[in-house]
């Protein structure tokens, strides 16, 4: 067996790597400009190479074509990686960030107020935010049902580089760009009108 990949093999490898779904042989021949037979040979040789050299990757023949996947015996460690990556880099879904935004700008605020603004149930996202230590329960609202009130935490301020809640960007700060854009356009139309008039 050859010790290195052919030009076609490495091209097929790169295509399968970037592909989001299984790739058909037809598509591989079209992209590479090689014959079906060569592409099929390259696929099978690539798979043999992965196996012989004990790569962590392999090729699967699926209904739609070929797909690059990790070796099945690595499942456990990959699940562990997901946990590790998930806990190391805290990333928030749009729903979570949106909820955090509602709490930050309206604190102290009850869950039903959050839900009223967002228009969707928010119990689980609030749990997530509590779990990350980004929001905390800050007492109960007086009145019927005395619901819990939520506030952001010191950790939130630290992570977002804020000295105080009042330091949250105002609408003007984030959106004066749009206002400027329309100003420029107005100025422009006056300008071009003038030029046309010349």
């Amino acid at each position, binding site marked *: 067996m050859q010790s290195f990949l052919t030009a076609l093999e490495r091209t097929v490898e*790169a295509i399968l*790597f*970037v*592909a*989001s*779904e299984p790739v058909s042989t037809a598509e591989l021949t079209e992209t590479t400009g090689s014959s079906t037979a060569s592409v099929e040979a390259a696929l099978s040789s690539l798979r043999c190479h992965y196996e012989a050299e004990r790569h962590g990757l392999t090729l699967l023949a699926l209904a739609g074509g070929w797909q690059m996947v990790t070796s099945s015996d690595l499942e456990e460690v990959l699940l562990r990686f997901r946990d590790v990556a998930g806990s190391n*880099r*805290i*990333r*928030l*879904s*749009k*729903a979570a*960030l*949106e909820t*955090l*935004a*509602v709490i*930050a*700008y*309206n*604190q*102290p*605020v009850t869950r039903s*107020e959050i839900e*009223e*603004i*967002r*228009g*969707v149930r928010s119990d689980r996202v609030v749990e997530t935010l509590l779990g*990350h230590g*980004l929001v905390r329960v800050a007492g109960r609202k007086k009145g019927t049902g005395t619901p819990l009130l939520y506030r952001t935490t010191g950790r939130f301020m630290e*992570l*977002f*580089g*804020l000295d105080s*809640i*009042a330091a*949250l*960007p105002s*609408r003007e700060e*984030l*959106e004066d760009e749009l206002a400027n854009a329309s100003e*420029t356009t107005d*100025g*422009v139309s006056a*300008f*071009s009108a003038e030029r046309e008039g010349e």
Partner: protein
Amino acid sequence: MSYEVVTGSFAGPLDVLCALVESRSIEVSTIRVWEVISLYGKYLSETERTTIKELAEFLSLAARLLLGKVHALLPDREAAVFPEDEDDVPEDLIRALSRYRPYRKAAEVFGERFRARSAFFSRLGADEGPPIYDLGDLYALSRLWWRLLDRKRGGAQGDEEGYEDFAWEGVPMAVPEETQVETRMQEIRDLLDERGEVTLEELLAPVPTKSVLVLCLLALLELSRLGELRMFQKELFDHVTVVAL
């Protein structure tokens, strides 16, 4: 994901000046306003894709140069104005240019890096799904809030995420509650300063929503706790009068 750097245009007026100097068309120490204007004007007329933005930036540069001249010509400036260099570029522009140049170079380096990096592709499939935000992204946080608010205020229809349309009424104001109470307290103070005495009815009458009503009551309670006002009824079922102390 693939990347592309748009080239061909200028990054700004300082970029234009640098380009002019480097092409030896002019010397920076002897930049004359009319020279810059005619050279840049020529460039703009030769470039077919001149945008209005570029024109505006050019006008702003020309204005800066002229302003420099005006300053130099003012009689009370201590630097004597010699007739032969009355057309010279203002000092601050030269300083601005030499401060700017390393960044212009850096932008070039960045462009090269960007292009070089774009030849490598990472996996596309894996990062599909809902957009996720790095924790600490204040911009994303803030933008989400203001958009949410606009959607509610505009009574927008449910969007791709399936939000339902509902009335804006009753949704808290977009400022922390403490601030709202403080604002209302100040309004009441101002009113009392002006009139000395108001009825509770007057204070509560123009409120559009329950939460604003609650806010107003909280403000009154806080002011009375601070000893700034007093509320009383002259007789049973009479109006409640609020007076400043």
